[in-house]
């Protein structure tokens, strides 16, 4: 199929002409709107503003037209243009590897330039990616609606905080410790709710999340209650990120002979989180192709059929709960490390709802969609700080619109398929 011949395709020249016309129109529109402003009693001209805006319009129009001319944005079988979001999805599909690489490079470079504030936002975004991927195993893949996921997040965070307080655990010991502890809690929750489905399961997990928070809040002697617990910052092979090293250790700025800045610590956390998320994505990809992953999905679709096919639902469900909880626990350890302090107010039901929203928005079961949604839902509210009062409203509207336009999430659920070669 030649791409040019698809209806709606245009030559590059035509696209260029169209873009320029759009630009002229935009210039005419923007000039009176943005080109002059009132300053006191006099009018000031800002000729560069409309030019900039029109320039962006030209670029955007050109990019859109060009992609369409290349045939990427046109329904290939029907020749009928698809809806905008579906076009985007198919374009992403076509350039997967390249996009992935580009994104990785950008993500690697980003932390060095965005400054302390946005660095912290970015770390939070990565933590949400981690949490959402964990919940996605439980809800998206295994189909078990968990409204108390924050419990495992809290267990991980407190696992590090209290582990340090009582057992003198370092960050590196707390990572596996928090993960295992959370996994144990996941299995512990999993056992009693094995027979439950849908609404009942949702309510019990919701209760579980609240129980954990209330215990943390009220067990003053052990957890410090609402006062929280201080958490030390991680070190890197004995190299510390503080201003002054503990006796017998060195700090980063001494080691690399650079001036002190506590951004290094955040950059370190950022990069570490990136590695952990990368590893998790890899593991999830593998699992979905393995019998366990397929059993999760089959169990989601029909439990009775699964059982009469010889699948033991207990192990399958518990493994989903355990793995999801473990991921949540790791997220918690990172959260504690990045904040330097934990207290129970970070682990309310709103947090569970937020993570669930990410999973639903990203498209249940879709790894890429969930990652994108986690980043968007963390960064966007920060970017919209100026509209603080309307944030909830905007968020709600976005959610409703999403459900109307793309009920299956940003990416829809793309499922691992068998290789058909050797069969067909």
């Amino acid at each position, binding site marked *: 199929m030649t791409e040019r011949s698809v209806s709606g395709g245009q030559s590059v020249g035509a696209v260029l002409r169209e873009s320029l016309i759009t630009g002229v129109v935009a210039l005419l529109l923007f000039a009176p709107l943005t080109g002059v402003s009132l300053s006191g009693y006099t009018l000031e001209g800002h000729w560069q503003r409309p030019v900039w805006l029109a320039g962006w319009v030209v670029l955007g129009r050109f990019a859109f037209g060009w992609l369409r001319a290349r045939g990427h944005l046109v329904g290939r079988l029907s020749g009928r243009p698809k809806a905008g979001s579906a076009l985007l999805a198919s374009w992403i599909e076509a350039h997967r590897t390249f996009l992935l690489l580009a994104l990785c490079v950008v993500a690697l470079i980003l932390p060095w330039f965005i400054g302390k504030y946005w660095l912290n936002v970015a770390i939070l975004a990565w933590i949400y990616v981690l949490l959402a991927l964990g919940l996605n195993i439980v809800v998206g893949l295994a189909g078990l609606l968990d409204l108390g996921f924050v419990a495992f997040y809290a267990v991980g965070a407190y696992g590090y905080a209290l582990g340090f307080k009582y057992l003198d655990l370092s960050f590196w010991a707390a990572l596996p410790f928090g993960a295992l502890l959370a996994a144990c809690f996941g299995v512990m929750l999993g056992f009693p709710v094995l027979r439950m489905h849908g609404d009942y399961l949702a309510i019990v997990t919701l209760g579980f999340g609240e129980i954990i928070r209330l215990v943390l809040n009220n067990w003053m002697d052990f957890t410090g209650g609402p006062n929280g617990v201080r958490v030390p910052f991680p070190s890197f092979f004995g190299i510390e990120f503080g201003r002054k090293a503990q006796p017998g250790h060195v700090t980063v700025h001494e080691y690399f002979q650079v001036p002190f800045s506590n951004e290094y610590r955040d950059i370190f956390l950022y990069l570490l989180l990136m590695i952990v998320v990368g590893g998790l994505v890899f593991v999830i990809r593998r699992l979905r192709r*393995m*019998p*366990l992953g*397929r*059993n999760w*999905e*089959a169990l989601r*679709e*029909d439990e*009775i*059929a*699964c*059982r*009469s*096919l*010889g*699948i*033991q*639902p207990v192990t399958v469900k518990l493994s989903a709960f355990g793995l999801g909880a473990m991921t949540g626990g790791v997220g918690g350890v990172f959260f504690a490390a990045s904040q330097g302090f934990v207290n129970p107010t970070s682990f309310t039901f709103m947090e569970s709802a937020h993570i669930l929203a990410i999973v639903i928005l990203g498209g249940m079961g879709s790894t890429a969609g969930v990652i994108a949604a986690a980043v968007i839902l963390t960064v966007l509210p920060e970017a919209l700080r100026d509209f603080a009062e309307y944030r909830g409203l905007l968020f709600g509207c976005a959610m409703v619109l999403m459900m109307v336009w793309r009920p299956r999430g940003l990416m829809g659920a793309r*499922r691992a*398929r*068998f290789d*058909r070669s*050797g*069969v*067909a």
Partner: protein
Amino acid sequence: MNRPAILELRGVDVAHGRTPVLHGVSLTVGRGEIVTLIGANGAGKSTLLMAIFGLPSVSRGEVWFDGQPITRLPTHRVARLGLAQVPEGRRIFPGMTVLENLVMGSMVGEKDEAALARIHALFPLLRERGGQRAGTLSGGEQQMLAIGRALMSRPRLLLLDEPSLGLAPLMIRRIFQALREIVAEGTTLFLVEQNANQALRLADRGYVLANGRIVLEGSGLALLADPEVRRAYLGGH
């Protein structure tokens, strides 16, 4: 009935919660036989098939498979012994592809290429549609898939619940032809059917279930000729 029994029910009672459904049901299926169970709607046929798998569990009596009691075994353990079931309503996995559905059938989840090839030979359509989402198959195609999935575990005994339900005559003939081939390859069949005519013609022996009790048994042809059966289940005179 001179063959060794592969499946045997001895005085089995089954209830759905508090509602008793089966009362003292006894029957045997011999190795290599085709046995059919017919009965009116609500007689308890589907309940009987599921009860063999422990869903719901048998409240009194015993179920034996291949010389071993399976009365109290959990469902997945029963399934691993070499029984497979094509349940009422097919219960395929609609969101998974045809091929994935088949692979789900092969016990430990390994892709059993030989079993797959055999099923593809039996139902070539399942090979052609390997990548299609199972939920988008037609009813008859889904039935083939359900049978194929059950066969993936290479069962010694295959239980089928109304494989002809809702299918056109041509499709029914194809399914029954496939069942004959399955038997020829050495699998034993226990078949629940509304379509008594076809089922009794195919079967060596048959049982009639009414209100949760076995009321009649005999060879397929004898039941076909039985005036009572003709009146009640074959719409004859």
